[in-house]
């Protein structure tokens, strides 16, 4: 039904475009001067057709369900039902009206379902009537304006600009959405678990906080010593540290080599090949770490008499480091290439070798940019999920031994939220609190890194 109406409105839009343009030609044929190209007359009319339709559709989508629900539940209002029961009743009658209801059908529900259907059909037909009359009215108004040959290009372009502007708000909306989705759950979480316990507690064991019956009162003592995030934070930074131990030397040296030594031919092939590493999905790295690197390290450790967990932090961190190599190598390559040639020439003229020039002149000059690229790499390592979920442990151990298993923020979020979640449960909220801390940490890293890189760029431009 909605689809038919929508198609019809689109067709109406095209027709109004056609008539608008035709009107322009008629005006032209009377030797009057047009205020804009004929198609703008068409666009003008089409926009006046689209705007009311859009507004009414959105209003309906927002208010129709609430109003229908209110009307149906008003039947039960003085029978002493609880809110939850009313909601259930409403859902049941909705399901029944769609023929998807499987439970026991009581006369009450049946009556509600019928009422629901009739209300829906009233709502639908009134929507059709209102939309069509609004369109006709606004198109008629616009047509009159066209006929008097008033301006059309300016309003059309203003409208387009407004659309462009709205689209550019999407980025802000997404950020707002992220903060919004995280903050309420996080606040609820900290109502039950004191912030102090979360930030300084050393024992993380969310499985203890089993799903609670919603009628039971919250008992904070039940959760004490359950949500201490120190092991998680420590594990996150520890694995990121291992990753950077792999990624920084290899990434930086290959960046330097590509920028300063490599011939154009080597550069042409080596650079894209290294960048393939960045294009491989992380779940693939995770599989590789879990299936190949983990067991390999375990065997290697056993042969040397060390006890290595099959899900060691070393395996996860090492593979994560491989993933980050291309980020560091390409960014530092860019940074080094943009160091002005005059600095190099000056150093060579003093008799320095190439490596001395790189170490003493270029590297210090490029340092801010390189630090920026490393910070971006760290932020990536902290936010990386699948490798840790698959290759590192899921139990949060507070350890600094790379051969044992640890867990990270991201892995814990996945562990908690995989499967069904009950909103309002401290365990679920804990995941959002972890997400909030992850978001804040990476946000700080990103802002600092981007600022450093930007400043550096300005220095040499």
């Amino acid at each position, binding site marked *: 039904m909605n689809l038919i109406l929508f198609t019809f409105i689109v067709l109406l839009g095209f027709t109004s475009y056609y008539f608008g343009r035709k009107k322009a030609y008629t005006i032209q044929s009377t030797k009057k001067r047009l205020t804009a190209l004929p198609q703008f007359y068409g666009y003008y009319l089409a926009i006046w057709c689209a705007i009311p339709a859009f507004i009414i559709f959105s209003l309906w989508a927002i208010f129709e369900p609430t109003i229908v629900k209110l009307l149906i539940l008003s039947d039960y209002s003085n029978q002493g039902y609880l809110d939850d029961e009313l909601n259930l009743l409403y859902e049941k009658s909705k399901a029944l009206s769609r023929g998807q209801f499987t439970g026991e059908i009581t006369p009450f529900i049946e009556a509600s379902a019928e009422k629901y259907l009739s209300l829906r059909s009233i709502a639908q037909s009134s929507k059709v009537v209102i939309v069509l009359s609004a369109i006709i009215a606004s198109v008629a108004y616009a047509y009159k304006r066209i006929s008097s040959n008033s301006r059309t290009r300016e309003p059309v372009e203003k409208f387009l600009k407004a659309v462009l502007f709205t689209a*550019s708000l999407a980025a802000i909306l997404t950020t707002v959405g992220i903060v*919004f989705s995280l903050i309420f759950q996080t606040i609820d979480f900290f109502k039950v678990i004191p912030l102090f316990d979360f930030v300084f507690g050393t024992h993380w064991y969310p499985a203890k906080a089993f799903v609670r019956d919603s009628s039971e009162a919250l008992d904070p003592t039940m959760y004490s010593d359950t949500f201490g995030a120190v092991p998680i934070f420590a594990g996150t930074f520890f694995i990121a540290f291992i990753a950077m131990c792999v990624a920084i030397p290899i990434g930086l040296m290959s960046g330097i080599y590509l920028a300063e030594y490599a011939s154009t031919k080597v550069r042409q092939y080596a650079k894209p090949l*290294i960048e393939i*590493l960045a294009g491989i999905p*992380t779940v693939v790295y995770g*599989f*590789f770490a879990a299936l190949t690197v983990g067991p390999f390290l375990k065997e290697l450790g056993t042969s040397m008499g060390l006890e290595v967990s099959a899900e060691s932090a070393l395996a996860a961190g090492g593979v994560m480091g491989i993933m980050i190599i291309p980020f560091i190598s390409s960014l530092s390559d860019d940074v080094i290439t943009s160091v002005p040639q005059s600095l190099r020439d000056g150093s060579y003229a003093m008799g320095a070798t190439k490596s001395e020039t790189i170490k003493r002149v270029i590297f210090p000059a490029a340092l801010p940019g390189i630090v920026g690229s490393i910070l971006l790499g760290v932020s990536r390592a902290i936010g990386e999920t699948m490798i840790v979920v698959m290759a590192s442990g899921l139990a949060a151990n507070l350890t600094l031994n790379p051969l044992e298993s640890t867990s990270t923020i*991201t892995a814990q979020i996945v562990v908690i939220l995989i499967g069904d979640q009950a909103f309002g449960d401290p365990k679920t909220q804990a995941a959002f609190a972890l997400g909030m801390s*992850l978001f804040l940490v990476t946000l700080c890293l*990103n802002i600092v890194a981007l600022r450093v890189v930007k400043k550096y760029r300005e220095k040499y431009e």
Partner: protein
Amino acid sequence: MNKNKEQLLNKRYKAEQRFRLYGLSAIFMALLFLTIFIFKIFSTGYSAFQKTWLIVPVTFDAELMMLDQNPSKEDLQDADYYDIALKSMADLDPNANEDQENELKRMVSYFFEKEIKNELLNDPNLIGKTKEVYLTASDDLDQVFKGNYPRDLPEDQRRVSDYQLKIFDQLVANGKVESKFNISFFTNADSREAELAGIASSFMGSIFSILVCLMIAFPVAVLAAIYLEEFAPKNRFTDFIEVNINNLAAVPSIVFGLLGLGVLLAIFHLPRSTPLVGGITLSLMTLPTIIIAARASLKAVPPSIREAALAMGASRMQTTMHHTVPLSMPGTLSGTIIGLAQALGETAPLILIGMVAFVNTIPGSPMDPAASLPVQIYIWAESAERGFVEKVSACIMVLLGFLIIMNLFAQIIRHKFEKKWS
């Protein structure tokens, strides 16, 4: 003095060579990782494209199937195939006792009676006759045939018994075991049985998610890029938008998963586990990538084009829409494809919005529950059965194949259609 200088010089040259070697070995290491990685995936995965079949003579005994004379199509549908299926497996070893008969049954897939049923439905004349039927081997025997199974383990540590191996070896010796291209890997949905599991459901899930992602992210991102590059005044608000975009590009993907869960599922009550929600989540993630690419390629259009259009009397909007945007399209499109390729490989946010549920039907629309290829990799990698290991690698090969195609496509668009401004 002179000798000292020479020594110093030599030292410096050596340091130079060492430094150069470090750089070279760093690149070598990176490429070595890539090679090991790809080799490992291919060497474990290629065998999944083959499937092992046992050729077993089946007697279509009308009595055992509870069929009367001249059965109709419906009768054939409803007939009892379990007994003849069981019997034909038991007949592989006439001396088998009851336990061994059970083991014989477990040599083929769980759905072997269905395969026999299909054989008869294809050719109803088979009733009363005996025919050699291809039955899917169990995933363990499949691995044995491919040589991936540790046969020398003690019997109580493996799932294939010595007896099954003995019969299987006899079948191999008689040429009754065949390996054929594994079509069902591409046409089947996920299954708990490794030998029957396929990627069709997750593949369709991926396609739907990517389409939803494209339909949302592309228009919004392009419009936003046009505004920011061509119309936005330079003020605080525009700067704020820009900071937002740059930050979003570096926000960890799992945070977008939390956004999908906390807003799309909890507030808007969109259906869980569906490519629709997955696609919207991915589109928010891809948005900054496409905006950045589109802005870069708008910026690359030389000002002379704009000036020429403006000089001819075009308005700002006309200049942008008729000249700048079309000229920037190749760069924008290739950026879009690269963004979509990233979205295609994304796993964590999809897990959070529930696309990790076990789905054994092939989704027909973005509103049906589905997995996606990377999530399928995760699901299979987490399951213990040996048969899934090669499936994971094969699924990775399919996924990597798609990523390579998309990236090549992006390259081609960039090189073929992008104008070089000199």
